[in-house]
């Protein structure tokens, strides 16, 4: 099978399709670490880390598409088809930085104990939203 030069990327949340288009490379944080996918990649199904940021390099004329994804996975099929599914996902430009910042400081101020899964998840979500929006955390 001829390897095409572009990836076809789909980013979907349960409620709608967030973004679909072509890109040169997809970089995502999986449970095992950062993973980059370029055209011709072997079929893979990878779980995204909690509060992951997914970047589609070359997804736009000038730069990349960034998405904060939580509780999802990435599947690569056919060498050039990448689907990213997340229970909650937000495009960088839709992220309300102020709100994410407040959410993060609230979550951190609440002194999260290591076994408070809900609190940890909330903090991770806020952090990934800020990262996707290009803010320093």
């Amino acid at each position, binding site marked *: *099978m001829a390897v095409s030069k572009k990836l076809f990327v*789909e980013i*979907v*949340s*349960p*409620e*709608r*399709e967030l973004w679909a288009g072509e890109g040169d490379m997809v970089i995502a944080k*999986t*449970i*095992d670490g950062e*993973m980059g996918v370029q055209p011709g990649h*072997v*079929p*893979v*199904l*990878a*779980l995204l880390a909690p509060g992951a940021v997914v970047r589609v390099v070359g997804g736009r004329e000038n730069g990349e598409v960034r998405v904060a994804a939580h*509780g999802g*996975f990435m*599947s690569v*099929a*056919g060498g050039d*088809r990448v*689907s990213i*599914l997340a*229970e909650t996902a937000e495009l960088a430009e839709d992220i309300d930085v102020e709100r994410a910042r407040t959410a993060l400081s609230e979550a951190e101020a609440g002194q999260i104990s290591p076994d408070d899964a809900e609190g940890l998840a909330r903090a991770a979500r806020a952090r990934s939203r800020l990262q996707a929006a290009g803010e320093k955390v």
Partner: protein
Amino acid sequence: MGAQLRVYRRRIRSTKSMAKITRAMELIATTRITKAQRAAEAAGPYAREITRAVSAVAQRVSEHPLLTEAENPVRAAILVITSDKGQAGAYTANAVKEAESLAALLREQGKEVLLYVVGRKGVGYFRFRDRAMEQTWEGITERPSYADAKAIGEALMGRFAQDSATEGGVDEIHIVATEFVSMLTQRAESHRALPLEVEEVDKAELEKEQGGPLPLYDFEPSAEEALDQLLPQYVTNRIYFALLESAASQWASRRNAMKAATDNAEELVKTLTRQANQARQAEITNEISEIVGGADALAAASAGSE
């Protein structure tokens, strides 16, 4: 004006204003159906992808608590999706009827039945009959969100994970939802959600779509962990889809009911107008004959005195 005529006129007026209300409700429902359908369509890509991923993993691993059937099922849960508001024809009644027949069937098989109810009308139905409900959700049926589906899914899966013999967990979970067949037909249907039967995407169709045989996936970190995360998401997605479809059905059913109500009201106005006209005619005829009778009597009296 005669009393009878006045009564007719009053009834015509009230029927007309009722028709106006039902017509407005019909129009609202019509726009909501399209919205609900659009929501269901927007959820399509995710449903397709997750089904595909689950089928891919399930080919590799088939051992998972959510996939294993209990040897001796003793308890089953039914999730019934009804509406929050009335005026939707037989929508809730059909869903409840389906749930009741399913419950009867399960009881026959010797299982204890637990009810989980979505929608105020369904809750009202079971409460009135003093039936125990495990958990209820209200106010989410018109525009269900994924978070709602997730809350329901977590409650059900938590119960499923418990041991049925010692902790009172359930061995099976069934969903009763209303399928949107067409604008005119909606059908209440039940299907089993857990233990899971993965609805596989048609292989031939998939292969055609992808232009080759199904890829053999690599899993990160492992197939087992992938399944661990995917299955609950898949179940939640099924519930979400059931909620969306039921919402569309609910609006379609409400629209039909309101259309019928408007038509009936208009028919009634026609009949009442005819009866009112008849009453008016009768009144006029009566008055004329009274005048003529009176004149006759006067003429007869004056002729007799001369």
